[in-house]
């Protein structure tokens, strides 16, 4: 049964963000604030970087604030002014990506001012940005979210997030469904999915962890991944991508959302996260990890698969 999710707190959150942004910009705590503003279509939103207190009123928070803004802090993106402390609006999932980047020494905490959102969920897609947030339209990542309230921010509006109803765990269920198949059925499933890829690299563009100055798949001496949007190169690209993000992915779901071909990218990422949790008891969270699960080891790691 479709149920409406209460997001009445979002207007209070909007007010609180505006006030805080105005304050930290006017007393020069930060040189810029990265947040969301209303988009052109009714209900839609888009990222914005504001640098003056007068612009604070442009900021909003709504169920259509899907973007993981953390990507703008990475060295791959040049939209944000360099120098000075930067303020940024983060939901719980976004914060996990930010914490991951702190752990990878890509960001310094003292250069950031974190405005956390007590989040009650966002929409799964921006196709209908003005749609009501319901148990149907809510993003899949929100269905499995355990981090509605960000931890360790500099400012969080004093609002309690709506406890999410018991939602269908879409990713977990789909992973279980695939795991129950036999290998050739799984191969067929992924072959079909990967063959859709047009190599637009939107998934890479939007991922906070794809900040490499030269992506392995763009290299041609030697060429490890064929660059054509054809089955062979696509399969290699997706497997390579899943490996590079294993142990790092924060599960923000942005890659999957931006994919124009509707490839379930987050299934791979979440499957890897699940395995890393089981194998090494390691998962993305709010605590900065000095080393990720694949950049560290224990001498007594399982080696039952090695002869």
């Amino acid at each position, binding site marked *: 049964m479709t149920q409406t999710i209460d997001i009445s707190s979002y207007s209070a959150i909007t007010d609180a963000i505006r006030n805080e942004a105005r304050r930290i910009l006017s007393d020069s705590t930060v040189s810029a604030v990265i947040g969301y503003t209303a988009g052109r279509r009714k209900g839609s939103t888009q990222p914005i970087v504001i640098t003056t207190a007068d612009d604070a009123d442009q900021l909003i928070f709504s169920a259509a604030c899907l973007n993981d803004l953390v990507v703008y802090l990475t060295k791959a993106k040049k939209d944000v002014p360099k120098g000075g402390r930067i303020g940024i609006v983060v939901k719980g999932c976004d914060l996990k990506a930010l914490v991951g980047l702190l752990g990878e020494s890509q960001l310094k905490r003292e250069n950031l001012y974190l405005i956390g959102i007590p989040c009650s969920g966002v929409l799964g897609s921006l196709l209908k940005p003005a749609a009501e947030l319901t148990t149907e339209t809510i993003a899949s990542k929100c269905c499995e979210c355990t981090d509605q309230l960000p931890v360790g921010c500099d400012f969080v509006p004093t609002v309690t997030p709506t406890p999410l109803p018991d939602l269908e765990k879409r990713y977990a269920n789909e992973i279980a469904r695939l795991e129950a198949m036999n290998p050739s059925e*799984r191969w067929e499933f992924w072959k079909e999915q990967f063959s859709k890829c047009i190599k637009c690299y939107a998934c890479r563009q939007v991922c906070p962890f794809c900040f490499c100055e030269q992506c392995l798949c763009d290299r041609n001496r030697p060429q*490890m991944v064929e660059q054509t949007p*054809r089955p062979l190169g696509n399969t290699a690209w997706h497997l390579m991508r899943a490996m590079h993000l294993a142990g790092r992915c924060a599960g923000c779901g942005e890659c999957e959302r931006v994919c124009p071909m509707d490839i379930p990218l987050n299934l791979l990422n979440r499957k890897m996260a699940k395995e890393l949790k089981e194998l090494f008891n390691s998962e993305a969270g709010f605590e900065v990890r000095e080393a990720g*699960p*694949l950049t560290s080891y224990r001498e007594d790691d399982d*080696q039952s698969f*090695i002869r």
Partner: protein
Amino acid sequence: MHSEKPKHDFEPKIIAFVCTWCTYAGADLAGTSRMQYPSNVRVLKFPCTGRIDPVFILKAFQQGADGILVSGCHPGDCHYIAGNYHARRRFAVFRKLLEFIGVDLNRIQFSWVSAAEGGKWVEVVTDLTERVRAMGPMVEFKDLVLEEQWSGNLNNPELQAVYEAM
């Protein structure tokens, strides 16, 4: 004298990614001791298992490998101290990924073979070769290669019309 080599219908291609300090030396020992092992295995030498990137395995499959072996120094013996510990984690995870997309893990073997274990090298390589032989060719990636060249349907109406017009 060499014993008569049995004839098989299918000779699998096995690619072995080995570290130079232990397994390569172990394979070398097997050779200099004149131990017999299947010639199906092609050995690729790396400085350390820590240098063996999962994309190498993908590349090998794309180029027609039917089975893969990754082998290096025993834990604690890595020439670079911890390369094999890192590799162990990386491959523990990569196996799971391959399994999830539908690759039969029986085609991939990981092992520790030291410079003194010529006999173990022979065992590992022989077992893997026979196992993969019984499984038959790895067709999944080869199909992708074919589709990479040509993904059109050979008997579609447009092509049919062209043929008929000729």
